[in-house]
């Protein structure tokens, strides 16, 4: 019999690192994106696009750099996150390049091809991803920056108020010709702050409370930060008229509070407060009111006179049908200037059809799922909170944007992570993936094997 019987020196059975799986998937992701790019060129001009070599090389380089850094510095990381992000980024690039070819958009004022910029921003994003993995050896270091994160988040959120509004919302800051959406970066900073704060206060919040009508009411001093966050999200809504960001922060906070305290009552409070805030603001903020009206009746005369973007987006989806028109063969450019940013999903809907859109949505769902899995696997509460915070924020953002573009909820003007044209979004989300990969690496890293015990030697049974 060849049964292994050494029961005393159980070495940690090494978890497979899955780096080769990741490599395979990356090859797949890059190939699909390059194929999409070629498809657009063939459909529109009847020939392979001249930039295909540069585009393919660029995307391959980004994927390769990402993979090598992960292999070297986070060998036990989740193998799906990087390929999924690369795939979305690659498909996004192909679609943005496709919209660059639209004669309708080219006729618009201030037209500039967006794809080269997007490739550049993707490179910056991957650089930041690499930076996170190199500098952040252990995610727990972030705990030390709890309050600094809060200050940074506040500054980022308040900054747009000092810049002029664009398209009816004050969510941009302009520095040296670059337009930055600080909300995207604030998302990460605030997740770090919540994780640090809640990890310290979770027991106080969960246990030091009175029972009232079946709900646990927290003490006033613990309730303070919650009220602050609630007020902050409402202020963002009022002063920056940014429905999306305020929804994102409030949702993020409720999710993390619930995970930290394990108390359902927090969810109830969260919903009540957000409902109160939303109704309150909607009654006296015309911008928000318009969005709600447009959502309820996208084809009414009043809505079409205001903005027909949602109607056009819905017609784009309808035109795609089940199988889509094929890349480069739809007319999603009718949506106008926002076709390659907020409404990029409409192009997916029209040109890749129901099948393609569902695939994209499932890819987003998979990223969230890997994030939640990372949270489950993490061994420290800070890591758990940070992972769920980041993936929760990602999920809420995807839902808010896709739901808005598809007319499921009022339109809020956020961007599809990775796919939409826009520097801040791509860069910030690459950083977000970097942090998730770092947490998953720590979580899946095998515990160091115990030092060989000299006693084991002594008690070994030796059969004659």
């Amino acid at each position, binding site marked *: 019999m060849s049964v292994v019987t050494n029961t005393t020196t159980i070495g940690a059975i090494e978890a497979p690192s899955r780096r080769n799986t990741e490599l395979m998937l990356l090859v797949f992701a890059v190939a699909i994106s390059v194929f999409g790019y070629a498809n657009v060129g063939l459909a529109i001009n009847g020939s392979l696009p001249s930039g295909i070599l540069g585009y393919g090389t660029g995307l391959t380089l980004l994927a390769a750099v990402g993979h090598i850094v992960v292999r070297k510095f986070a060998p036990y990381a989740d193998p799906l996150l990087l390929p999924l992000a690369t795939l979305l980024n690659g498909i996004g690039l192909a679609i943005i390049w496709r919209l660059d070819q639209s004669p309708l958009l080219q006729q618009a004022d201030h037209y500039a091809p967006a794809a080269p910029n997007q490739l550049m921003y993707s490179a910056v994003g991957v650089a930041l991803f690499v930076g996170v993995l190199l500098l952040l050896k252990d995610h727990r270091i972030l705990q030390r920056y709890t309050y600094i994160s809060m200050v940074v988040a506040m500054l980022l959120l308040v900054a747009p108020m000092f810049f002029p509004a664009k398209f009816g919302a004050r969510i941009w800051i302009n520095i040296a010709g670059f337009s930055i959406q600080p909300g995207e970066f604030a998302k990460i900073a605030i997740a770090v702050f919540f994780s640090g704060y809640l990890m310290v206060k979770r027991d106080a919040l969960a246990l030091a409370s009175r029972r009232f009508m079946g709900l646990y009411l927290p003490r006033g001093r613990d309730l303070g930060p919650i009220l602050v966050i609630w007020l902050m999200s409402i202020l963002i809504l009022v002063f920056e008229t940014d429905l999306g960001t305020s929804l994102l922060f409030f949702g993020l906070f409720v999710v993390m509070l*619930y995970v930290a305290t394990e108390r359902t009552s927090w969810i109830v409070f969260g919903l009540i407060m957000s409902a109160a805030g939303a109704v309150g603001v909607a009654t006296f903020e015309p911008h928000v009111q318009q969005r709600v009206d447009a959502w309820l009746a996208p084809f009414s005369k009043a809505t079409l006179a205001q903005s027909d973007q949602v*109607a056009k987006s819905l017609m784009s989806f309808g035109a795609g049908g089940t199988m889509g028109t094929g890349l480069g063969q739809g007319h999603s450019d009718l949506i106008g200037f926002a076709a390659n940013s907020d409404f990029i999903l409409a192009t997916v809907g029209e040109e890749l059809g129901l099948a393609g859109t569902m695939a994209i949505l499932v890819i987003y769902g998979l990223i969230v799922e890997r994030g*939640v899995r990372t949270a*489950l696997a993490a061994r420290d509460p800070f890591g758990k909170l940070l992972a769920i915070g980041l993936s929760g924020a990602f999920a809420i953002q995807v839902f808010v944007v896709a739901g808005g573009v598809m007319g499921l909820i009022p339109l809020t003007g956020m961007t599809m992570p990775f796919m939409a044209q826009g520097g801040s979004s791509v860069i910030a989300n690459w950083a977000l993936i970097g942090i998730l990969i770092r947490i998953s690496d720590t979580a899946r890293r095998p515990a160091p094997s115990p030092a060989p015990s000299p006693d084991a030697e002594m008690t070994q049974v030796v059969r004659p």
Partner: protein
Amino acid sequence: MNKPLRRIAIFCGLLVVALLLRDNWIQYVTADSLNSRKENRRVEIERYAHQRGDIIVDGKAVTGSTVTKGSMYKYKRTWKDGPMWAPVTGYASQAFGATQLENLNDSILTGNDDRLFFDRTASMFTGEKKQGGNVVTTLNADAQKAAFKGLGDKKGAVAALDPKTGAILAMASTPSYDPSTFAGNSTGSDTKNYTKLKDDKNEPLLNRALRQTYPPGSAFKVVTASAALENGLYDSVDTPTRSPLPWRLPLSSKDLPNEGNLPCKNATLVEALRVSCNTVFGKIGADLGNDKMRAEAEKFGFNSEQFTPVRSNASVFSKGMDKAQTALSSIGQFNTAATPLQMAMVASAVANDGTLMKPYMVDRLTAPNLDTVAKTDPEKQSEPLTKEHAQMVQKMMEAVVTRGTGGKAQIPGVTVGGKTGTAQNGVNNSGNPYAWFISYAKTDQGSPVAVAVVVEDSNASRQDISGGGLAGPIAKDVMSAVINSKK
């Protein structure tokens, strides 16, 4: 912390499921209704994405397509002799939609029609480019040319029919427009040209042959004569009509005047139509009464829209008028109003021995490979006159041309019957009168053409405006063109 984490995971899953359900709802369930919304420009884009089929007259296309660069719409419609054919084809503009045949047969012209299914499927396998089918019209190019040239710079319309079938042979309307000038979608030239046409007080976009009703004046006396014969008021067209001169309008203190000092006292029907006696035909209307007159007018097509398939406005002979009003209406004044097409129908029914054929202008629709997918068969619309009575009216109308007011429509070697009309226009007759002429030609093989001409306005001075003088020659040219093209 794992229990709430799992719940959050389920919550995130639900968010994704909600998105997936919504996606299925809009892209699968409501896709068709979204695609057929009028706000959806994809319909227009698709309409011009392929080479459009042609509208064909006498075997030759009067339309075409050109490729446009730098636009969402790939092909642009073109027309040959646009102003001449515009009343037939209508327009198909990328920016301003389509009208008439271009609109009604859009699905054939774009190639999307279900009747082209087999053709489309076949070309899918042969790899041919998608192409539209053709609309073959019944029009006669020579007749149309004669009509358009005859109208010239005058304002008016011509409608010509084949009495035996109802096929429309000519349909002209002036002033006209060239649909090519606004077929594209450039906000510069196309929009400017279209707005200019739309705002023009002469209404060049109006198809006067179908959509404008005029008081028919004396030309309506043909209908009144038919009513008299059909209702047995007179047995013969050669016996005196027992009508006095002057004749006082019933229930009124006014005499109905004739145009000039005409020999209308007790005139025979032939004589009365020849010189166009108001007294004789007014009295017939009053004697028959509103109901009988209206019944006869409706048999000729009054009071209902005609679909050729392009819709023509309903001509009017009112209901519930008293005897004096009926008398005035019976000489084509008061409330009576008729489209040129309607008056051509009157002439064609008389020429066709009393049978009115339904007017139509699409002979057949063909697939891109010229296979016929639909054909219009001549259809009887009604029988306003018996054969015997129709021939009596023919005798009257022929007298008008040989010895009466319609002399200018005479064609050597051809029997022509006609009736002039000079209809008062405006309050107290302030506007220039409308000059009418309705006629038909007859050869040994029967009657190949009936025509109605109206000249609404012209530079001629008031005294010179008369149906016979202004409209007669145009009718003659159109009839000659049809007869010559048949030889």
